[in-house]
């Protein structure tokens, strides 16, 4: 066992002692750290182009307004109250933005999050629900908020490519949600979930660059002859290499996650962990709090990183130079982001969500399309990380065998 840990130490040293590796790691941390500040840098301007307030002050103001509304039920009273406030905004001329008016600032801004929630439900592909519609929100429409939501959800579920059993299960799941939802300020978590996608992609990119050479670097440098002719080169060293890549990835991704989380909580506030996830997306059918979904998402994200890493490690054992490993892994990481597959084709949609870079999106984790395995319905937030871990466990031995049986020609 001491040989294993000794080799682990050396493998860490080999991977991380290079100046390039340190630079890439630090760059990853810096970019992840800075990206959190993206939305609070800069200013809000009025129609005349004058600075109204900084974005940070704007965020603090919105936070204060939303905290005042926290704990209130998202029901017709709140919707009509918000609509009344929005009604005070004068009719707009074509060149202006309603958010630049003094009335918006004075009356409506405090309800902007309620307007956003209403839009999630009232907006339809055929009928656009905009601010004028909200200003004239009728009592009937406000009262039927949850009916409309349910109707839209059921329509969407019926249009997916899931089996009838899974559709019925999802509809039942949605019906079990307790309504009305309670409004909570949860911007800190919302920002965290949004930023973590790019942070995880960034982290995976860094890991790919760092470990593309884990096996191929040995072929490339010619050290493979020494390693494979040594006593532990065909077994314990490979275990040590695999341990190093996965342990480092876990620590690095956990660090980036923790850094992003801490920054988001410090800047945008840590309130809202007990809110229902529906305040982030009305199409989520799961009875889950924001806090629970964040934990599940982080685990899912780590599993996606592991899968991506397993692919990197395997390719590293196949290719003779790290360059091609980086090229292929980058393509596999970036290209799927541009795929847009409809929920109507369940199989393709499922496969798309199982690609590591897509699995890193929160919307995939809590998507309403269920997985079905041998007639069993499995939630995406369970299936996706499990699938990633199982595939990782399947792929890694191939990399092990490939390096072990590598022929020095």
């Amino acid at each position, binding site marked *: 066992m*001491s*040989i294993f840990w*000794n*080799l682990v130490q*050396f493998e860490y*040293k*080999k991977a991380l*002692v*290079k100046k390039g590796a340190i630079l890439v790691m630090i760059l990853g941390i810096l970019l992840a750290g800075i990206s959190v500040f993206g939305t609070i840098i800069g200013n809000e301007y009025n129609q005349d182009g004058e600075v109204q307030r900084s974005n940070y002050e704007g965020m603090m103001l919105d936070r204060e307004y939303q905290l005042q509304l926290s704990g209130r039920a998202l029901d017709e009273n709140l919707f009509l109250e918000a609509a009344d406030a929005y009604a005070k905004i004068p009719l707009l001329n074509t060149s202006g933005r309603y958010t630049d008016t003094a009335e918006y600032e004075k009356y409506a801004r405090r309800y902007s999050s309620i307007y956003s929630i209403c839009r999630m439900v009232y907006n339809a592909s055929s009928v656009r629900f905009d601010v004028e519609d909200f200003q004239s929100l009728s009592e009937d429409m406000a009262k039927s908020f949850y009916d409309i939501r349910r109707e839209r959800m059921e329509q969407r579920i019926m249009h997916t490519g899931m089996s009838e059993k899974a559709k019925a299960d999802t509809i039942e799941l949605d019906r079990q949600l307790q309504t009305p939802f309670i409004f909570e300020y949860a911007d800190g978590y919302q920002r965290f979930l949004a930023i973590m996608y790019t942070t995880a992609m960034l982290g995976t990119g860094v890991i790919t660059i760092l470990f593309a050479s884990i096996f191929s670097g*040995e072929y*490339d*440098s*010619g*050290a*493979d*002859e*020494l*390693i*494979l*002719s*040594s*006593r*532990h*080169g*065909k*077994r314990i*060293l490979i275990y040590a290499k695999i341990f190093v890549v996965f342990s480092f990835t876990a620590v690095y991704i956990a660090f980036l996650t923790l850094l992003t989380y801490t920054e988001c909580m410090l800047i945008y506030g840590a309130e809202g962990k007990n809110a229902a996830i529906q305040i982030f997306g009305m199409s989520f059918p799961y009875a889950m709090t924001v806090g629970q979904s964040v934990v599940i998402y982080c685990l899912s994200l780590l599993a996606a990183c592991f899968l991506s890493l397993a692919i990197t490690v395997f390719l590293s054992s196949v290719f003779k130079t790290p360059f091609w490993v980086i090229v292929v892994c980058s393509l596999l990481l970036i290209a799927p982001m541009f795929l847009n597959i409809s929920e109507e084709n369940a199989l393709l949609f499922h496969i798309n969500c199982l690609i590591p870079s897509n699995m890193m999106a929160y919307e995939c984790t809590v998507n309403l399309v269920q997985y079905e395995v041998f007639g069993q319905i499995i939630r995406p937030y369970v299936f996706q990380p499990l699938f990633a871990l199982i595939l990782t466990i399947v792929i890694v031995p191939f990399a092990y065998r490939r390096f072990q049986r*590598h*022929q*020095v*020609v």
Partner: protein
Amino acid sequence: MELCIDRVSKIYGNKIACDRISLSLHKGVYGLLGANGAGKTTLMRMMCGVLCPTSGTITFDGIDVGKEEYRDLLGYLPQNFGYYPEFCAMDFLLYMAALKGIPKVHAKEKASELLELVSLKNEAKKKIRTFSGGMKQRLGIAQAMLNNPKILILDEPTAGLDPKERIRFRNLISSMSAEKIILLSTHIVSDVEYIADKILLMKAGQMIHQGTLDEILSVIKEKVWECRVEKNKADELSEKYPILNFRNEDEDIFLRLVSEEKPCEGANRTEAVLEDLYLYYFNELH
């Protein structure tokens, strides 16, 4: 102690790199000679388990080349070995020691001892990327000896060493030959001549000769001639006989050649050396 190579072949597509080679190696130094592409490195790689033979077996006292126990007894210096530029010499040896399963406590002591042996003690903490070719080669020799191997396979070990280091290395190998099987390949024929107990001669993937220096030289014994002739005559002889040496001397040409009988008037028979045999076999005429 027997390293047994039994009808080992390696075929790449339609090229035969090693053709049914059979050898039985015991304690001592074996010099492997052959031109570029003769199959020396391929054979050595197969003996080190980094290349699988197409057919045949390699065993040491019954232990197959693919086994961990075999690798535990092996020390190998590849022709162009990879190193880690950011590692210092000591770290590199400690890493190799870990790979060879040497406990940490003994590894440092052994590494220091070997660094001193290859005259790199003062460079122990210097990064390998700052090393010259000869220094890297000496470091390679040191790593091959870390586990006090019973089988020591050295592919071109003296490449890049200066004459002083080469002689030191030869003496070192000679001193270890009583308890190990040492196989070394080199283009520097004199190295083999000085230290090898047995010489193995490879050509086009086949083992064409093996034996002691005297046994192997018997092929050209009393067939090596030296003469001094005019240029026209020299051209004529060059087409007819394998030329071992060709040197301009004033108006004439000095020739050293192999011939069954006296090649020309004034030719003197001379004692054959290994280099003659090497050139004889690897001369295009032959």
